[in-house]
């Protein structure tokens, strides 16, 4: 059991896609709408990069995956993602709540989270950044649009940006705990 593993692409590897540590990039998509999931999957298939795409379908499953609880206790079923793509409107626990939880967790907060959502109210956009999101993208209505988004995501996160490796910060000095608990 474990998160649905949509696909693994080995393709031809560009020099950054291995994240300079000779491992594939792991992307975790939290999305409850089946058609939207398929669009993202198909768009990533078009991209020439080495990655593993994992998938959860609501906020509760997302947190279980990240904490390796429930059906995700086996570490290979839920490898720590390098990047989380997060829908906001999901049942059981929505993306807003999940983002807040991820960004206040010592072990999880260093994982970049990019929101990919139909909702684009100013409040949602502002809150995403206030909570520590690393981008807010409005879900494209066409496959062509989704392809464009995924190409840019791929180039930015896997070629331009350095990703943190490993399991997150374990020994954080007290003076690094600076996250305010006020809203």
């Amino acid at each position, binding site marked *: 059991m474990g998160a649905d593993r949509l696909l693994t692409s080995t393709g031809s590897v560009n020099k950054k896609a291995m994240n300079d540590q000779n491992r594939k990039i792991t992307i975790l998509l939290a999305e409850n709408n089946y058609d939207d999931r398929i669009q993202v999957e198909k768009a990533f298939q078009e991209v020439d990069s080495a990655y593993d795409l994992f998938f959860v379908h609501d906020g509760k499953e997302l947190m279980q995956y990240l904490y390796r609880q429930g059906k995700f206790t086996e570490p290979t079923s839920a490898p720590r993602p390098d990047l989380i793509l997060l829908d906001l409107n999901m049942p059981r626990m929505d993306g807003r709540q999940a983002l807040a939880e991820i960004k206040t967790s010592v072990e999880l907060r260093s994982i970049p989270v990019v929101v990919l959502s139909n909702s684009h109210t100013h409040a949602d956009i502002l809150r995403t950044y206030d909570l*520590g999101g690393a*981008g807010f993208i409005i879900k494209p209505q066409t496959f062509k649009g989704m392809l*464009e988004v995924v190409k840019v995501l791929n180039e*930015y996160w896997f070629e*331009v940006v350095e990703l943190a490796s490993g399991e*997150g910060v374990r020994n954080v000095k007290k003076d690094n705990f600076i996250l305010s608990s006020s809203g």
Partner: protein
Amino acid sequence: MFNNAKPVTFLIAEDDPDDRLLIHEAFQESLVSNSIYFVEDGVELMDYLRRQDKFTDPAISPTPDLILLDLNMPRKDGREALVEIKSDPNLRYIPVVVLTTSKAEEDIMRSYDIGAASYITKPVTFDGLVDAIRGFKQYWVQIVCLPAQEA
């Protein structure tokens, strides 16, 4: 793609004058127009964001939509400034992208941990810098929505 109505305002904290020039030129190479402001160290950066000292006029020092942050700066380094920005309820919504020479794993991990949106190691060549800035702008200007861009 998602063309925003207003140009994006970038605030770049960079102590090395040659790097400031190169970054400015790299920004000009792209077609999307933006407003770019520079500060030279962490003290200036915080003064700018808090509208203190010589930065009291928002017409001259507008609140940025995004901050590019060098880590190694005199007076107050980027690490300390990042902590201050991300613990200030009035400032923490501004995405901060680290752009620095350091490739140290500890700097990368700690930057994300404190709340940097991304970490970019400065490419050693100008062409590399142009490519990085282009990819950076494709993401932050063309694809992503920033809070100030939504009316």
